[in-house]
């Protein structure tokens, strides 16, 4: 939670990555950890995990497009640097796809823990002030955010 993408690729990115999130991020400037994101088309790929897809059928990543959907800016040099690393991750999925699952029922989850539901009992978070203090631009009582520039 709190991460904005699908796969957290720690260490797969250069240290001086520019996090240029102009849309939506409220906490970008004060985030304690730096995250790097990579999106993965879940529907077209992992949903068909029981089919016998071979490794080579997975398309190579379109890094500029991925960066754009995650609202991050990459330099051409970074794109070049990322591509093989992301490719590597996709290949891992390729290996998973190779596993024959024809005789296995699809699972929604790896585990099926029970008793995970919570009672509907209100409890106010005690440390609200420090959260609000961490908001980059706060104008009592609202959080101020950049105007949305609709690209479409």
């Amino acid at each position, binding site marked *: *939670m*709190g*991460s*904005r*993408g*699908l796969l957290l690729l720690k260490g797969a990115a250069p240290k001086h990555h520019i996090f240029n*999130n*102009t*849309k*939506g*991020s*409220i*906490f970008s400037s004060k*985030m*304690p*950890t730096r*995250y790097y994101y990579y*999106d*993965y*088309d*879940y*529907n077209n790929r*992992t*949903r068909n995990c029981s089919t016998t897809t071979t490794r080579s059928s997975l398309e190579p990543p379109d890094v500029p497009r991925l960066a754009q*959907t995650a*609202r991050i800016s990459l330099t051409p040099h970074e794109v070049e640097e990322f591509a093989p690393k992301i490719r590597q991750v996709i290949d891992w999925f390729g290996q998973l796809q190779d596993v024959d699952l024809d005789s296995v029922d699809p699972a*929604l*989850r790896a*585990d*099926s*823990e*029970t008793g*995970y*539901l*919570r*009672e*509907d*009992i*209100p*409890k*106010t*978070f005690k440390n*609200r002030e420090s*959260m*609000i203090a961490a908001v980059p*631009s706060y*104008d009592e*009582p*609202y*959080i*101020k*955010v*950049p*105007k*949305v520039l*609709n690209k*479409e």
Partner: protein
Amino acid sequence: MASFLFRTIQSHSFLLCPTTLLRRNNGAFYCSMKSTHTQTATQEKQQPPPKIKSSPQGNQAKTRTLDRISKEYEAIIGIETHVQLSTLTKAFCTCPYNYGAQPNTSVCPICMGLPGALPVVNSKVVEFAVKLGLALNCKLSFNSKFDRKQYFYPDLPKGYQISQFDIPIATGGYLDVDLPVEYGGGHRRFGITRVHMEEDAGKLLHADDGEYSQEITFPIIYALQVDLNRAGVPLLEIVSEPDMRTGLEAAEYAAELQRLVRYLGVSNGNMQEGSLRCDVNVSIRPVGQSKFGTKVEIKNLNSFSSINRAIDFEIARQALLYSQGKADQIVQETRLWEEGSQKTVTMRKKEGLADYRYFPEPDLPEVILNKEYVDSIQSSLPELPEMKRRRYEEMGLSMQDVLFLANDINVARFFDATIGKGADVKLAANWIMGDIAAHMKNEKLTINEIKLSAAELAELIASIKGATISGKIGKEILFELMAKGGTVNGIIKEKDLVQANPSEIEKMVDKVFSENPKQLEQYRGGKTKLQGFFAGQVMKISKGKANPGLLNKILLEKLNAKS
């Protein structure tokens, strides 16, 4: 007055054949009393609340245009409804949610999307989803899951919305709707594609203070204000099949959904507060064409009447483009309904489908239901609006009455409680729809706020029916009960309102005769019109406590006896 006359006729007939068919006459008398109430009450009967404004008579030119359009084109309408659940806490955290609370007070690391915070599902959300799924006659998914829907918008702190994508909790149901009588009536069944659980986003306000929005001295223009109180509040999204054909059908579908969630107690269904939000999809095609036209989405529909009018406007707009050979100008887009100009306007054009990059929410386990759980919810479901309407219909109430009484769960409960105490069904309906509804409207009260209880209404009806008090006195008592409370018997005793018995009436008639010998002579001399004068005099000295039918009967007997 009409009732007075009616009674007179009844007592005449009683006199004309005094010995025959006493039973039948008793029956007739009883019936006449009943119809007297019906008449007095119906005269003031409130029209059912104009849920969907745009009068059936008014705007005939528009109606004609719509008629013509409907002959040439068929509209296909589907609705997506978001219902905000009336849970005490948010969907995935324990923050309490209260509409209208001071902005950004009900927030925590989970709903603010802080790194490391983990969501935990509120059991009520699943329960309410199952309730609504069952009430909509859906098939439930015993194993479903949450997914992340990714998009960037300032009111969505996490950068994704927790929703359900490919396995919603409920699918394939339907909703039964009765169309209003004043629009021709009719019963419709609209398909429900799916119901799924998700979280709401925060509220985005446009700060128009000019402080930042005008000056462009800063690379980033801080021009939006965010309130995250609503972020993470549970919603159920209900997607209909594209089964609606007119704005009215769509508005009635939405009204029925509102009724349903209120009956179930899963949401307050308040459209003004945004607890029930409808987005409609409209496309038209020439009659006979099997291919669907381009669909347009309409947002910003804050009332049932705006749903109705926005759709009819949109159908007319698209039909005009078709008829001008400009069908290609109907593009897939989102349009906003503008209440001021009564038009839909382009909000954004869609360039292909948005890529939400759905994937399973890794922080939440599977949602597992079992048969026992579902059965227990099924058996705890209240009587739903459709069931109530069919039951009321079987009681012999008119469709107008049925729709009025079943429209508001509290009114329906009051009605049910009244007839539960043995009150006559039709009389109870008439009192509620007439004087009680008028009082509620004038005083801006709900039926739960008036001081009259269902038990007292039943008592009142019984007192009139049993001839303890007259209908006129009954009405006075009703107003006193609604305003101040108390009991029927208490007021009758306190104010000495018991209807005069025959011997008392006889005494009053004698008194009137002795005070007006001249008129009595004239009457007996053939001026029978004077009967009304005598009746009026007797009524006056009885202070309204004489039953008009009985009074006339006794009066006539006495007037004619000594001649």
